[in-house]
């Protein structure tokens, strides 16, 4: 096939792909802007005319929304930042040193990634109860950090394998301490890996409903996913509010993605390769 016609075919295929792939997201946003009675119609309306912000008003007017938002941001931020730091330190330990228990730790970290999370609800509840961390954002953040660590450690380990040890050695020969080495040399080099795993951490913490619901007692301690399920009550489901809330809920994640998109693609290749 000649290059030009090939390019045209590929572009046509890509356009078709885009239309198909974005359709559900488009449908979500489209529905969110429809007036309440218009949401379920036998003949679907593809453009939300008349445009209505009623659903969004419903969604944002829910009690405790501000608290939910604040708690979600804190817990998710802690998961992302705390997870990255702890995982980096652990990955440095796993790749730069030989010590007893290293292999066992690695296998354990891999194995725990395979446990289905609903199975962990009661065990984690019991664990946090013993540690007196129930109904605290600290306990919830630690839960999320714990969920996120295995994947992050694994990814960063892959990245660190790709950083030549000679760099650190040269730095230490020149007098840098280990902390400096980590901060000044390793950190910039594994940044794409950290960004890649932080996206995973963001999504894991942001979307969790079950653990936040079970660990917290007071309404003011809940997170945003509780807000999402609050649209389905015993008297019926507020579909308009629900879909508007879902759109708003997805927004920070999409924005986060778009911002780090370029570095993410970079991050995917390097860490993934080393095995």
């Amino acid at each position, binding site marked *: 096939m000649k290059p030009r016609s090939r390019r045209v075919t590929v572009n046509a295929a890509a356009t078709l792909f885009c239309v198909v792939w974005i359709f559900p997201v488009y449908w979500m946003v489209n529905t969110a802007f429809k007036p309440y009675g218009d949401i379920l119609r036998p003949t679907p309306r593809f453009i939300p005319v008349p445009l209505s912000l009623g659903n969004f008003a419903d969604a944002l007017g829910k009690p405790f929304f501000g608290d939910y938002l604040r708690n979600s941001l804190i817990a998710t931020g*802690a998961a992302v930042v705390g997870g990255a730091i702890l995982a980096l330190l652990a990955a440095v330990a796993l790749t730069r040193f030989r010590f007893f228990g290293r292999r066992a730790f690695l296998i354990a970290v891999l194995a725990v990634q395979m446990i289905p999370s609903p199975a962990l609800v009661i065990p984690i509840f019991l664990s946090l109860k013993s540690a007196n961390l*129930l109904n605290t954002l600290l306990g919830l953040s630690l839960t999320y950090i714990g969920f996120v660590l295995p994947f992050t450690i694994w990814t960063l380990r892959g990245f660190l394998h790709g950083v030549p040890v000679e760099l650190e050695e040269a730095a230490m020969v020149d007098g*840098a301490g280990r902390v400096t080495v980590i901060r000044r040399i390793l950190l910039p080099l594994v940044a794409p890996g950290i960004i890649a795993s932080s996206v995973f951490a963001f999504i894991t913490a942001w979307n969790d*409903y079950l653990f936040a619901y079970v660990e917290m007692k007071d309404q003011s301690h809940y997170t945003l996913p509780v807000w999402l399920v609050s649209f389905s009550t*015993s008297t019926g489901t507020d579909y308009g509010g629900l879909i508007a809330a879902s759109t708003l809920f997805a927004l920070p994640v999409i924005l986060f993605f778009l911002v780090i998109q370029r570095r993410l693609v970079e991050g995917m290749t390097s860490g993934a390769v080393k095995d």
Partner: protein
Amino acid sequence: MVWTKRRTLDFTKGQMSSFRPTEFRPRFPYALEATVHQRSTLGIRKLPLLAGVLALAAVGVSGCGGSSGSSTPAAAKRSSTLSVWYMDGDLSSQDQAAIGAAFTAATGAKVNVQIQEWANINTKLSTALAQNDPPDVVEIGNTDVPLFAATGALADLTPEKPALEQGQSWLPGLSGPATVSGHLYAAPLFAGDRAVIYNKKLWAKAGITSVPTSYAELTADLDKIKTANPSPDFSAFYFPGQYWYGALQFVWDAGGQLATESGSTWSGALASPAAQQGLATWKTFQNTYSTAASRNVDTKSPDQAALFAQGKAATILDTSLNTVLKDNPALKGEIGTFPFPGRAAGTSQPVFLGGSDLAIAAKSPNQALAEQYLKAATSIAVQTADIVGVDGWTPVSTQLITRTSSTLSETSKAFAQAASRSVATPATPGWATIESDASINQFFAAIATGTQSPQQAAQSFDSHLDQALNATP
């Protein structure tokens, strides 16, 4: 593996390059590190501290937001504030405030209300009631009460029963599930049930002039509506195949039961002749008057209130008009209600009594206060003025129903009427399993779609009932 080594610097340049240390230029010149080194001789020791601080700095703020839970591990102390958990959507905040006001007037103590969501509520309640500082009073759906009552989570209220009942006879659908082995573990809060909601205009257009009072009249009326509206996506009576709350009414009306108890063993009774007759009647009813697309769905997807509001269904069976009116406010005044008529003339089908009870956590340190709260909620004054008056729910006793029937709006009367003939679901912890694993939905859907005959479906569901209802929690 030369190839592997060559990939080591990919992340910096996005392409392969050969590896040579001197080619790589770090961001910060090493010279700077020399001065830093002085300060960082203790770097290793600082590390765990540093790591710990960094990791927790992000959540440090959380200390302000959430430390109330880290009270002493021993049993919580008595307090003058009662913590009460209500479910979202059941009682309006006005109602909750009214109960709180009555309670405060009687005891002087305050109330701290927290609203919980229905999704995964049993897990939530299980974990909450297992803690040493549980909520004092919890609202539990009446069918879930046996689960917690039989496992030691709730306080035994038997001695208080006379004081709580205040001379009334509670509806069996509410107090039955709360009574395990003769002991009372919860007090009824409110009841909800189902009645037929119909679109007056569509019915009038089909030539029907009066509300049906027997099953035969109902089917005759629906036939007229069906003939007047032959479109395949129109339902004379929209009845989703998974709508087991409604389908059970047919079983009960025919004299059948879900399960029978002999001694302390439950056995599924859907294969009995009476139940089978009810199931067969239901299947015919569902297949005839509801669209083909409705056979395998539940009431939410698609939303039956929305269907009714848009005129795609002339009749539905539901617990209240609120959702319909929210979907289409223009229908106000054009909707009527009546209890689902039974086979025998002048009777209505026995309804599934929904609703909630209020229970006290066994580990709560404020037992006496909590009992006062329950008393306030079940009192005649509160029930009449708020449960019925403000929210329009059905009150908890037959006397109250009779007393308040005259105050009800035209459309609310049918719900109260229907409640007079109600059936309780098996008062055993295992019932919660049946409701939450969706097996009962699939049982009815299989019959409606014709995948299984009522006999076949009943046999396999009965064995599931046998196993689940008798399981010790």
